[in-house]
């Protein structure tokens, strides 16, 4: 495999997973914290559902999305099947429950006194969430890391909705599947090494960030 192609695949992997996890973090951190601070009737059911979706098989999600996005499907008019946008959507849906669930846990595990104090300030929910997210940021960041790991390493969903089109929707994991089935194990090992390096770089960056934001925490 040429270096330029390998670079293109690597950059697409980072772009798709990075965008998906950024979006799922924006929505999931807010949603998870909101679930943690509010008391409502179906809270336990919602938490159970979120936790269940954390383990959604990527292939199943990919198949459901495929049916929705295919030309005859209800979302076919969007015309995004077999594009990076569909891959981002798939990974967004795959990682959203992870960020949401782990954010809920992180905020819920804050000391009761802190939550009561924030409650007593009579602030709008938006400010309450901001204050509590700031306090739970290390736990939340772990959730984002878990989501990123899941996104970078998953193959089932992106191969179905992306189609593994060369120079367009081929990412590291789908390329590995393709070259494995072609019997080109040298390329597979190269791609595997790059995937490991990418994964290692993400982990290192997040750990450094965790260390940075964790300074001064209790």
């Amino acid at each position, binding site marked *: 495999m040429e270096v330029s192609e390998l670079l293109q695949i690597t950059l697409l992997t980072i772009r798709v997973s990075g965008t998906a996890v950024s979006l799922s973090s924006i929505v999931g951190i807010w949603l998870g914290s909101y679930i943690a601070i509010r008391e409502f009737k179906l809270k336990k059911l919602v938490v159970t559902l979120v936790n269940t979706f954390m383990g959604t098989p990527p292939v199943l999600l990919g198949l459901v999305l495929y049916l929705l996005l295919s030309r005859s499907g209800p979302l076919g008019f969007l015309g995004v099947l077999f594009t990076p946008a569909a891959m981002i959507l798939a990974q967004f849906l795959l990682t959203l429950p992870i960020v949401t669930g782990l954010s809920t846990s992180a905020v819920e595990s804050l*000391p009761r*006194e*802190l939550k*009561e*104090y924030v*409650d*007593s*300030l*009579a*602030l709008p929910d938006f*400010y309450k969430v901001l*204050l509590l997210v*700031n*306090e739970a940021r290390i736990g939340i960041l772990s959730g984002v890391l878990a989501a990123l790991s899941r996104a970078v390493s998953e193959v089932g969903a992106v191969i179905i909705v992306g189609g593994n089109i060369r120079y367009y929707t081929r990412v590291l994991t789908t390329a590995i599947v393709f070259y494995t089935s072609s019997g080109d194990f040298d390329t597979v090992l190269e791609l595997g090494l790059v995937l490991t390096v990418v994964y290692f770089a993400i982990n290192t960056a997040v750990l450094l960030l965790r260390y940075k934001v964790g300074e*001064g*925490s*209790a």
Partner: protein
Amino acid sequence: MLKAVNIVKSLGETKILDNVSLVAHRGEIVVIVGPNGAGKTTLLKILALLTPPDEGHIDIDGSLVDFSNEEDKRRMQEKIAYLPQKPPVFTASVYTNIYLPLRLRGIESGEARRRTEHWLTTLRLSEHAKKNAHKLSGGQKQLLALARALALDPEILLLDEPTSSLAPSTAELVQDILKSYAREKNCYAIVVSHSTAEAKRIADTLYVLVSGKIEATYPGNIPKTEVHKWI
């Protein structure tokens, strides 16, 4: 007048508060004393509108608090500053810990700065202003939490053992500040305490809570022997 009327609160089968009534007047300090597990903190949390009573009601200046109405509750809570027993601090500087809640409550930045600096000085925390609040000692954290509560300029001040981690001389300073604050601001002040000396020193009215029931009430001049009897 601030009234808690016939408050009942249970946790499972256990009655934590059993028909408790309490009255507070503006400018005066009400102290609630009692042994551990008497229900003092629960009563304070109900007064802070953090938890609803099973029975009974809270009346603030003639308005009944509707615990089921979030908007009404929030409006009432804006009048309250609550200091929990183990005061939490935000992961931020000491200064920000006081300043931020003021800004989030919509207080203009100049006024928020003025109040923050005033209470930092009054409670002798100025030299720690830039320090991360988690690096303070237990007593300093308690002072910080108190500064944060007083800076809100509340109409209702609810303090759960505000001097429990303080050295005796600092505790006396805080007690003096509380007394003059309640008088000057003409606010309601309700303090849960475990200290006989503190109860004697600051209480205008003393309530003795034992096993969820008000066992005795001492308005006015409280005999020290009586206070000792209950703590």
